[in-house]
């Protein structure tokens, strides 16, 4: 009985952490797949949204849901401005320039947050309804983790349905597969880029706030978790929602179990697995696009 509870605890905790990784990374996967843009600054959007959400709740007394909405739309709005004026100029540039540009953006975000808000760690005050324990029958577990897992599943389902069943989803898939052909068919690729970039960044902002419990929130956030976001995206596959969802959940559970049982350097297995996985399937679990 105890062993079952232990395992269930690890799986649930890992799934919740993985869900956060998924919500943050899914936008990165789609925009990278769509635009071929190596956006290392994606974590900076997550941090920005996280700060919006936490500060809205702690300083402006917003409700949880209202703060989440603010985080999503605020980050999306910021990303549209950056996309229109800066990112767009680099779509045709080499990967190296994109890497350099986005590392520069990360530094600007880190310094900006440090100057405006301060270097200290921010904590998220959960609403009372989500802060207790939920009895699942065989185990009582933190309500917030269960809430995250459910939300993450609904988001994954929603994005997947959008991809597979709607017109804009079809346009995105077509553009990921063959951008030139999509353009010739009259798809407004520029508009598509802006919309998906805004949506992906908004999701990252949402994830930054939802995950402040698990990942913490301080100005170093974009650099600290960069490798994790990139692992999720590259293992999951560019432009693949389902692949990213699985990759994030697997990484979440693995990381949770390893930090529990091998606190010193257990993450070495994550890197080793990622390398093996990428060597076996360079395009990720279910990547669509030949690079």
């Amino acid at each position, binding site marked *: 009985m105890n062993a079952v509870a232990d395992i269930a605890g690890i799986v649930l905790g890992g799934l919740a952490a993985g869900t956060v990784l998924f919500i943050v990374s899914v936008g990165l996967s789609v925009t990278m797949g769509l635009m071929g843009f190596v956006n290392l600054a994606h974590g900076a959007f997550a941090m920005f949204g996280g700060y919006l959400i936490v500060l809205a709740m702690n300083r402006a007394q917003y409700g949880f849901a209202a703060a989440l909405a603010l985080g999503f739309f605020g980050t999306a709005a910021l990303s549209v401005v950056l996309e229109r004026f800066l990112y767009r100029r680099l779509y045709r540039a080499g990967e190296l320039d994109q890497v350099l540009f986005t590392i520069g953006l990360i530094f*600007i975000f880190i310094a900006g947050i440090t100057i405006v808000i301060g270097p200290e760690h921010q904590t998220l005050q959960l609403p009372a309804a989500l802060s207790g324990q939920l009895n699942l029958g065989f185990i009582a577990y933190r309500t917030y983790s269960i809430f995250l897992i459910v939300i993450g599943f609904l988001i994954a389902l929603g994005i997947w349905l959008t991809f597979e069943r709607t017109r804009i989803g079809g346009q995105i898939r077509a553009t990921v597969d063959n951008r030139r052909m999509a353009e010739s068919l009259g798809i407004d690729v520029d508009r598509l880029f802006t919309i998906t970039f805004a949506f992906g960044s908004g999701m990252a902002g949402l994830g930054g706030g939802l995950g402040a419990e698990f990942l913490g929130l301080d100005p170093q956030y974009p650099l600290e978790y960069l490798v994790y976001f990139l692992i999720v995206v590259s293992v999951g596959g560019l432009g693949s929602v389902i692949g990213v969802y699985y990759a994030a959940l697997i990484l979440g559970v693995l990381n949770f179990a390893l930090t529990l049982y091998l606190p010193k*350097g257990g993450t070495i297995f994550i*890197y080793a697995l990622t390398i093996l996985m990428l060597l076996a399937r360079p395009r990720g679990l279910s990547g669509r696009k030949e690079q």
Partner: protein
Amino acid sequence: MSVAVSRAGDAAAPIANPAARALMRRHRLRWWEALPWLAGIAFYFAFPDYLSFGCDLIVTILFALSLDLALGYAGIITLGHAAFFGTGAYAVGMLASYNVWTEPITALLLAALAAAVIGFLSGLVLLRTAGLTLLMLTLCTMALLEQAANMGHAYTGGFDGLPSLPIAPVFGVFEFNPLYADTQYLFALGVLFACFVFVRTLVYSPFGQSLTGIRENILRMHAIGSPVRRRVLVCYTISAALAGIAGGLWAQTNAYVNLSALGLDRAATVLIVLILGGYGRLYGAFIGAVIYLALEHFLAQIYPTAWQLGLGLLLVLIALFARGGILGLGEALWRRYGGKLSQRRRDGPTAP
């Protein structure tokens, strides 16, 4: 007529084609190529109190130069070059710490060997991929080594690293430790010079030319029958060996080694240094390292946040407006306003 006889041995006619002339001239030594070394020696006499900073500078230049070979010449985009820097640093550090090998020059060769082995083995599997996958694989290899160094703390000192490494005197005569910064500086300068001569020769050799070809158009290189994969692997291994020397030199001049040798910070910094100076150009590493370290040394201590903000803005501006880095920018200005030199061929990558 008799003056302008072709150098190619074909005495029939002077080479009229400007492209051919440029190609023949490009590897000749120019007068300004002595400047960095004169500056290096002048620094020794002018700033005797800053010689340990000078050592840092030399290590950074050498590290950036090694990255330039992989990234600027062979076009391998890597986020994990610190893996080799760290391998070299730990090779020197562990050999010295356990008193196995403390002679500095041969220790650097061993560092190069260790890094080359890691570079060859990882390159053997990594270099089959491209784009994001390659970026991730290099990053993960580095993270793997970092975690391995962290876990094996019985040998590597783990998080704390290995302090106060004993290094034997250079040539058995000159005491080598941070108290004798002048010895360290001159030793480092000598190592950099030797490595630079090697890289310069390599880059202008047929091998170096084929690397440039691979970077510019890999399909055509395949089509003309160039053994692309083998060339890239050899280049990656050499680049790793040089990075290992840089790491070993870093461990020797600081007399310690720790996990910071292997981190993402170091890998990102060297990338920034190289691109700031201009990649695919032999002297980009020099310019980038001098400017970056000077700014960091004087600004980062006083205004760390402003330094980060400024650095971020600088990177964004370079990515948007000055793709060739500072050297590229200088060359573009020179070409526009310098008149005649337009026929000089640019070694760097063409803007996309």
